[in-house]
């Protein structure tokens, strides 16, 4: 019963979405004063999706110092209406209940593993449609993998929603924001609960939608070319289309599986593929992996994630760090039996792309000056780790290592993003403009101690500092890569570990510390911006503090491996003692420590300006810096391709259509009219020329007739 009713978790956020969109949001909008313009009439009844509201109808001028542009960028209301607040509460209460329920499920399955069969349990299903012998079923099921993911999703969603009360204060789209967040939670849970490829694909697209809506939350915000920041409206477009590119691969993979097995159901497909050609299955799985590459921003489909940082920061924390981007990993874990059946190159592709992306993104993160973008690349890099974990684990370790890193990463990365949000929020209040450049920060630790402390813990966790959660999950993956005989991948992941430690501490020191701060520049120091920065309100710091707990402790739950179906004897190899005994673990730790130490040494002791001068004066460093800073010019390449190749082809097709296809049509038409007006000239109006025609015709016919009579018809 406990498990059977778990579909309520799935539909709870949908309920919240509906309540907000049809209820409290309408209330919110109706209670707003109507000024100047004939305000937007929001009809009653059903609008079935998102709702881009009118922000600026209500007044902005209460906020002194807000320019017109600011109003467009982030429209505010003087104070939140009751309807807006009710929206937040509705979302929060529902999400809290869902969160508690999912924790209950987690504990009960941990304590009584026998209650829920390993294969899981169908909790809700209906026949979407069936034609001939083919059934397209919308089915949701619950298993331990799902529960683990569900806990992550509901917990972080709840914390983010709680946090947003502070971050989104006075935002004109407050209610809309909560509606989107709820919609996202629902979509994400669809993926989690999915029982077959059809449903997971639906969830896949729906999270794409929520991501699209949330990235573009500030609908009129401008692009900032000087900071290489696109407008949200471009960023969400890019995100959606990049994901779609991956989805094409995904759906092609699904189609190969479907036509060979006649089903979408994971279990049925699993049984069906046994007879399938292994190479074809491998290709199918790589295509499925394409979907994961899009969603999890793996090279070469990674460029959307840094752009997606244009969304509100809580959104970045929830969607573009902790949950949605990890959906790719979850999906690969979900389909891992199919990968295991396929030819081995399928796993190798996954691991290689993961490893390459991890390293690739880490190098870019080294030099980024945008606070959130550093985190974005670190997310890409960590997701690469997860794929490595899945790819190298092999059948004996299964999805455990990859999923475990997903689990721990979700908490500390959410913490990092929420902390970053706290910083940005503080700076926005201090400088009355949006600041994300670390060069305008510095020494914030003394001004925002809670944020700084929690952030530091998260940095240590992501760097793999022994004792923090990231250490356990990440070193396990690095170790496995070596153990399973992938030296190149091992080398890449190991190097990445060092880079990660370096750039994360660099970001920390640039924001919170600096030359002259305590502990050799780690804590406090000169502030390079202006205005009075204050610690964020409790709404925002409480989630930070709460997230510290799993960021540290999550790593100690090594029962996770067994929980997500790794056989018992192999779990022994993955236990904490085994980890501490392995040599490669300590190699990894040393690399991380070197990275941390180097960053501390460099940025804690040397002025930022000076570092910059050194880099700029050295030709080699300068070139490397420029390449890295421009993210290997991949974005420019894509822009170029879109602008000249895609649009060029489109323009070519258009020209073909207009001048050839339509040209033929119009040509035929003007040919007919032209012939007509040409023939018209034969009409001289003179009787005698007609007579010539007539009698000439008669003569010709007569002659022909005579010839025929004398020859043919004789």
């Amino acid at each position, binding site marked *: 019963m406990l498990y059977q009713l778990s579909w309520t978790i799935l539909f709870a956020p949908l309920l919240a979405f509906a309540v907000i969109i049809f209820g409290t949001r309408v209330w919110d909008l109706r209670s707003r004063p109507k000024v100047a*313009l*004939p305000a*937007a*009439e*929001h009809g009653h*009844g*059903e*609008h*079935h*999706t*998102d709702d*881009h509201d*009118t*922000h*600026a109808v209500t007044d902005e001028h209460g906020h002194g110092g807000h320019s017109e542009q600011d109003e*467009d960028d982030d429209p505010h209301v003087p104070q939140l209406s009751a309807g807006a607040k009710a929206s937040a509460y509705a979302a929060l209460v529902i999400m809290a209940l869902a969160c508690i329920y999912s924790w209950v499920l987690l504990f009960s399955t941990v304590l009584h593993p026998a209650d829920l069969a390993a294969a899981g349990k169908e909790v809700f299903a209906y*026949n*979407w*449609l*069936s*034609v*001939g*012998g*083919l059934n*397209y079923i919308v089915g949701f099921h619950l298993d331990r993998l799902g529960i683990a993911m569900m806990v992550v999703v509901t917990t972080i969603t709840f914390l983010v929603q709680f946090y947003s009360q502070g971050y989104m204060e006075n935002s004109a789209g407050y209610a809309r924001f909560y509606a989107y967040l709820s919609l996202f939670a629902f979509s994400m849970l669809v993926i989690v609960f999915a029982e077959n490829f*059809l449903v997971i694909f*639906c969830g896949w*697209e*729906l999270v794409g*939608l929520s991501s*699209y809506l949330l990235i*573009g939350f500030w*609908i*009129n915000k401008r692009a900032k070319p000087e900071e290489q920041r696109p*407008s949200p*409206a471009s960023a969400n*477009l890019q995100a959606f289309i990049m994901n*779609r*590119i991956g*989805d*094409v691969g995904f*759906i*092609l993979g*699904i*189609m*190969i599986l*479907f*036509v*060979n*097995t*006649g089903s979408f159901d994971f279990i049925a497909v699993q049984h069906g593929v046994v007879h399938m050609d292994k190479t074809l299955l491998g290709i199918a799985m790589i295509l499925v992996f394409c979907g994961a590459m899009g969603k999890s921003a793996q090279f070469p489909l990674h460029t959307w994630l840094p752009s997606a940082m244009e969304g509100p920061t809580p959104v970045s924390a929830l969607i573009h760090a902790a949950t949605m981007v990890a959906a790719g990993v979850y999906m690969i874990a979900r389909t891992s039996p199919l990968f295991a059946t396929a030819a081995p190159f399928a796993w190798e592709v996954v691991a290689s792309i993961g490893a390459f992306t991890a390293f690739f993104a880490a190098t870019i993160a080294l030099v980024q000056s945008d606070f959130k973008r550093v985190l974005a690349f670190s997310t890409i890099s960590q997701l690469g780790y997860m794929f490595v974990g899945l790819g190298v684990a092999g059948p004996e370790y299964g999805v455990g290592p990859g999923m475990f890193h997903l689990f721990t990463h979700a908490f500390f990365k959410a913490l990092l993003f929420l902390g970053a949000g706290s910083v940005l929020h503080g700076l926005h209040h201090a400088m009355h403009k949006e600041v994300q450049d670390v060069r305008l920060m510095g020494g914030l630790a003394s001004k925002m101690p809670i944020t700084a402390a929690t952030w530091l813990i998260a940095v240590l966790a992501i760097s793999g500092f022994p004792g923090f959660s990231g250490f356990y999950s990440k070193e396990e993956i690095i170790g496995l890569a070596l153990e399973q005989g992938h030296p190149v991948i091992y080398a890449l992941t190991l190097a990445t570990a060092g880079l990660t430690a370096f750039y994360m501490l660099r970001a920390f020191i640039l924001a919170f510390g600096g030359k002259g701060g305590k502990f050799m520049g780690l804590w406090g120091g000169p502030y390079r911006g202006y205005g009075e920065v204050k610690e964020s309100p409790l709404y925002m710091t409480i989630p930070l503090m709460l997230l510290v707990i799993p960021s540290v402790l999550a790593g100690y739950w090594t029962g996770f491996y067994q929980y997500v179906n790794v056989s018992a004897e192999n779990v022994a190899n993955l236990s904490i003692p085994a980890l501490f005994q392995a040599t490669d673990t300590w190699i990894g730790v040393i690399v991380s420590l070197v990275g941390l130490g180097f960053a501390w040494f460099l940025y804690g002791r040397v002025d930022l300006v000076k570092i910059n001068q050194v880099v700029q004066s050295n030709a080699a460093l300068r070139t490397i810096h420029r390449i890295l800073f421009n993210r290997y010019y991949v974005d420019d390449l894509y822009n170029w391709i879109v602008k000249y190749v*895609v*649009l060029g*082809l*489109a*323009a070519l*097709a*258009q020209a073909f*259509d207009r001048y050839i*296809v339509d040209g033929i049509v119009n040509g035929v038409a003007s040919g007919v009219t032209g012939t007509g007006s040409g023939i018209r000239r034969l009409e001289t109006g003179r009787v005698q020329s007609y007579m010539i025609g007539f009698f000439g015709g008669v003569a010709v016919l007569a002659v022909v007739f005579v010839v025929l009579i004398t020859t043919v018809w004789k």
Partner: protein
Amino acid sequence: MAIFGNWLTWIILLPVLGAIGIYVVPKRYENAARWTALVFSAATFVVAMGVFFYILHARGINGFGSLNDLPYAINLPWINFAAGTTHFTVHYFLGVDGLSLPMVILNALLTMLSVIGGWKKKNVRAYMALLLLLEAGVMGVFMALDIFFFFLMWEVELAPMFILIGVWGSDVVKHGVPGRVYSAWKFLLYTFFGSVFMLAGFILLYFHAGSSDMTVLSHHLIGGSTTILGVSISLQLLTFLLVFIAFAVKIPMFPFHTWLPDAHTDAPTEVSVLLAGVLLKMGAYGLIRFCFTLFPGGLSQFAGVLAVLAVINILYGAAICLVQTDMKKLIAYSSVSHMGIILLGVAAAAGGGNGFFTGALAGGDLAFRQAALTGATLQMFSHGIITGMLFFCVGVVYDLAHTREIAIFGGIAKRMPMLGTLFTFAAMASLGLPGLAGFVAEYMVFTSSFRVWTIPTILAVFTMILTAAYLLWMIKRVFFGTFNKKWDWLPDISKRELIPLFALAGLIVFVGIYPAPLINVISSSLTPIIQSAVTFIK
């Protein structure tokens, strides 16, 4: 009179009566004309729904029958004369089944919504009357089951459409004449061009099969071959090609598609809605109803080419959308792209396939063919409602701003949040977002045609990217991004205009989330068709 005792007659007759009724009310009562139109179109809708529920009640959701087992029909002799030994008979034969009834309901619904949408048109009496006449003609097309009666209705529909585009269309000069005139003529002549071939095909069919009655024809498929100019061609293929040209023009299939963007850009909003919503479906409907049922052999021979043309339609249409500067033209080309999916579904259902996947499965190939054809039929319905909604949205923008040029807008969601929402919703539905109607059909067609036509389907799937790109890019440039101060005065959508949008949005969501009822209705009628077709091909 038996003819008036059948509701199907009234489905055609009510709009005609409405059109007459509009002229009966004195000219100065414009509102009365509007209400008359609304009442009669609503009555038509009610009757259509009544027929639906009658069949549902009598025979259940899976009992929507087929040609041999029509759930509701009327068949009366109409024209009957003998010239020498040749008998020429035409029947007044109307009937609905699971294939045509959704189209009938769609037509009734969209006409009703168009009447609401066109409430403020100038010269409103004539406009409403013509809309109703158009409805009557299209109804006839969807219900006629006698090939000559069908042909008659096919032509009847042209006249009101021609006038609607030609009189209320846009005045932008094209090729030296006002666009509305150019487009109306292009539409008319292009359709006539196709009709000529269709008539030839029907006559050929009639003299080979000896009947114009669909139920008889579907039992006695023509066979054999004939020689034209020394080339021997199977009769099935010949008649198929002749009849298909008319449908290809209407669908519209590359390279016969260029009338569509012109007609759409120059037609008034409601006419665009009906054009995309139901008139294009006439072609697709005819393809399944006539070509698939009567010439499975010909269609099967042609299926490979059809699959290729479908892919061209899908990708080429989508690519052109990327560089459109006019919102309506963009949506028009997106129709070309989406109608390609129907062609792909039909090609998959009839084709021999390229035989990459031959493994025996539960249901086998037949199930995939059936899914493809059902998906194609569903696409007719869902494309109708989605594109209808998109056109309504563009119409609202156009009525306020008097332009559809994408480039001169920017960020207007700030002033038109409700419209922005609904437009985004419609775009999402159009690009195949799960949970909305567009996805169901697309997913069905792609997943099942993959088994039959693998390579074309792989190519066609890339439309997912292009569709998302052009629609969302358009939305972005119009509604999001930097706000263009020029549009500060724009009011949001009015309540009246919301009615059609909400109605369609509700339908889109319902079909997207729970398509099973509609699918059951459709597939109960398609199953016999495809079974007999497959038997014939083998």
